[in-house]
């Protein structure tokens, strides 16, 4: 009973703090100084129409690099906790025979997987022109891989290829940053490549290249995490 009472007290106190936040909030009429300078500088200096991608990949690119490192640690941690050969998994119903998925799943995956892949490529490449970017596209790639894993349960992902691709993409990202130090103004500056015409497909310097590297890295990482959750499969000697 006391546990219930303390929970109610905690919720009421949180509710009072949040209510004071919600009541005392008024919409701002104009941007604050830092935001206004970002909105002014990104189209002028970086040549990117999408202000948010310009901030994420040039002005605050060091935070993006730190977050890429956090995703890498999370991937390594999940694979470590779930790896079957270090601590054998006591599955609830015994080691699994690969279960045949139904016809609806297979037909649906055959139609949807190319569409999702094209959509992911579109989101990544369009990051600097309209809403999109590396992170969002990488998450959509991982959802395409998840659809394939659900539709074909015997499908074995090539984990070494994904790990090597992911590490190479991360290394190229840091190398592009160092090239920014040498050639342009600072670490991960996007002016190492020519700025081009505003709004064209190949414009805004190195931002499309960085978007592609980021999308590939996030996609491979999330696919490795998804593959770690699958049960270990017993060898199929007699197929039904």
């Amino acid at each position: 009973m006391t546990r219930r009472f303390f929970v109610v007290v905690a919720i009421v106190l949180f509710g009072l703090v949040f209510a004071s936040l919600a009541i005392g909030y008024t919409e701002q009429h104009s941007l604050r100084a830092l935001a206004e300078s970002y909105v002014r500088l990104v189209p002028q200096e970086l040549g990117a129409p999408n202000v948010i991608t310009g901030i994420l990949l040039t002005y605050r690119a060091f935070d993006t690099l730190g977050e890429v490192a956090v995703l890498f640690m999370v991937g390594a941690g999940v694979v470590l906790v779930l790896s079957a050969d270090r601590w054998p998994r006591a599955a609830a119903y015994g080691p699994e025979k690969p279960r045949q998925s139904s016809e609806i799943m297979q037909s649906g995956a055959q139609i949807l997987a190319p569409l999702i892949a094209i959509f992911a490529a579109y989101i990544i490449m369009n990051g600097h022109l309209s809403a999109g970017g590396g992170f969002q596209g990488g998450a959509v790639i991982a959802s395409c891989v998840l659809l394939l894993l659900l539709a074909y349960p015997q499908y074995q992902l090539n984990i070494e290829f994904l790990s090597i691709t992911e590490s190479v993409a991360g290394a190229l990202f840091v190398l592009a940053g160092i090239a920014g130090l040498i050639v342009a103004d600072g670490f991960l500056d996007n002016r190492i490549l020519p700025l081009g015409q505003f709004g064209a497909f190949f414009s805004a310097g190195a931002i499309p290249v960085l978007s592609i590297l980021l999308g590939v890295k996030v996609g491979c990482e999330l696919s490795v995490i998804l593959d770690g959750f699958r049960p270990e499969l017993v060898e199929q000697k007699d197929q039904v």
Partner: protein
Amino acid sequence: MISNIVLTTGLLLILIGIWGLLTHRNILRIIIGFSLMGTGTHIVTVAIGYVKNGTAPIIDRVLHMSEAPSRAVDPISSALVVTAIVIGMAVTAVMLAYTIRLYDSKKTLSIDAFTESKW
């Protein structure tokens, strides 16, 4: 007006997430509470960046470069939320991996069974 509604919805979601986190005994429902709290925080962060009668900070046919600083919405809060969503999903993946191992060790999903760390 509209950002008041969005802000209140986000704060309500955080409150519901905290309540679910503290009340349930099933580990999977606690993880759902964490996820709700994270989503509420993202909504609150985007809502406080709203400028009156503003539009998205993307320069295209609707918003020209010259009038962008006066009509665009705050881009910094959106940029923070973009990365926060991916990190939230990765942390949920770690929590689910731990759930699988906890279930393997004690064959139950109730958090009352794991008392080795309590005083």
